[in-house]
């Protein structure tokens, strides 16, 4: 058979990539199913869950707080000129509050979380894999999936919504500071305008989607780390691909969440 005929028979490089993509999705789905199975089955690793919640949640607090404050402040400063142009400066607290609570707070916090926690989980698990720590855990009679993966995914799923609530509150305070840089609005008046503008359908879907953000970020981090190769370069690869895919998944979930929410508004 000549070369041209062979090339015709060989799958196109793009087809190969598409095949790899779908295989990866299938593997990730199986990994997620295993998570649910192991999560339900006793024994439960409560101590490790608390430890991971501290590491994933509490240790992320300073970064999330600083980002939240800057987010609120900058959004307010940037929005003011346009609103002034339309004579709607008094709408500034309400507009900023809706933007932060509905969209910017959850998404920016989730992206920061993906960068910090997703990469750290990916690198840690890959490093444990390379240095045979996961094997050591298995031969000592401990289920490493339950101990390492389930606890991290659960912690991230539970901690991210709390961090988003904190980030939103601090971002609103940042907005209050921003409003007062070129104006004079008292805190009670600012609060009244903010809470007057917000409804249940602004807050509830925004918080619910953060559970999915947290779940996907940790799931991808754990999947990439747990299935890392044997060389040390796989640690970097796992951390990198965990952040990239987790960030992408945040936007995809956000898009789906917006579509679902719009059905009820």
């Amino acid at each position, binding site marked *: 058979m000549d070369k041209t005929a062979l090339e015709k028979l060989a799958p196109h490089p793009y087809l190969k990539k598409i095949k790899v993509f779908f295989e990866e999705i299938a593997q990730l789905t199986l990994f997620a199913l295993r998570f649910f199975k192991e999560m339900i089955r006793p*024994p439960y690793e409560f101590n490790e869950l608390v430890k991971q919640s501290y590491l994933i949640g509490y240790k992320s607090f300073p970064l999330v707080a600083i980002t939240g404050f800057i987010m609120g402040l900058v959004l307010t400063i940037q929005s003011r000129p346009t609103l002034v142009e339309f004579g709607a400066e008094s709408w500034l607290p309400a507009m900023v509050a809706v933007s932060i609570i509905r969209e910017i707070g959850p998404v920016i916090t989730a992206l920061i979380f993906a960068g910090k926690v997703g990469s750290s989980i990916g690198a840690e698990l890959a490093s*444990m894999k390379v*240095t*045979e720590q996961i*094997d050591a855990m*298995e*031969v000592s*009679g*401990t289920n490493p999936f339950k101990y390492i993966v389930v606890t991290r995914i659960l912690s991230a799923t539970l901690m991210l919504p709390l961090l988003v609530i904190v980030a939103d509150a601090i971002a609103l305070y940042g907005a209050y500071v921003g409003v007062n840089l070129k104006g004079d609005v008292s805190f009670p008046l600012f609060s009244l305008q903010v809470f007057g503008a917000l409804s249940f359908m602004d807050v509830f879907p925004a918080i619910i989607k953060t559970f999915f953000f947290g779940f996907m970020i940790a799931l991808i981090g754990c999947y990439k780390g747990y299935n890392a190769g044997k060389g040390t370069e796989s640690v970097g690869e796992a951390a990198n691909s965990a952040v990239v895919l987790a960030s992408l998944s945040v936007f995809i979930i956000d898009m789906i969440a917006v579509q679902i929410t719009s059905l009820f508004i």
Partner: protein
Amino acid sequence: MKTIVVEIEHLQKSFDNNQVLKDINLKIEKGENLVVFGKSGSGKSVLIKCLVGLIQPDDGSINLLGKSISGIEDKELTVLRKKIGFLFQSGALYDSMTVRENLEFPLRDSTSISKEEKEKLVIEALENVGLKDAIDKMPSELSGGMRKRVGLARTLILKPEIILYDEPTTGLDPITSREISKLILDVQTKYNAASIIITHDVECARLTANRMIIIRDGISYAEGTFKELSESKDEWVHSFFE
């Protein structure tokens, strides 16, 4: 007649098109040290990973402490694994835990053991490897030899009936290697455990082996005591000891 604690028959394992283990057969008695010798990449580590179920063999049978591990249920395998100690090549200490926490880890599920008893077991295991003072150190603060000793202490804490050593002296200087080999002998005397020692270190094999098996091309090529094999007329076998 001594009890056979490990029995492997016609073990086979391939990775893609590479058949690493073609036909491995071996038996180990209680309290015996068996050294598995062979060139790098000959499948020695694959062999012991098959023993504890970390790698699934393609064919053949493995009997540990009278139980076949093929088709064994997860719960039973977990119980069996607690009777087997595994010293990994790198020590495989948990980086995020102190030496104490590393040693306490295998005892987590043992609800019958009180906190005081756990502390006593940890200290005893560390004393056995001469590292009692390192109890509150992190693995990153330990040297290669110390990491292996702590790894061995963690292996010993459940008082296993079978101990698997994966390249226990690789990457260590000759003095530390000899200390580790002596430690393996001390463990044999104290715990009366059967051991499989995977190595290509002749000195380690000389010091620790009651019996040796040499793997070549995926089969148990030669078997005997260290003396018998080192004086073998087979050129390939003899070349290991030159």
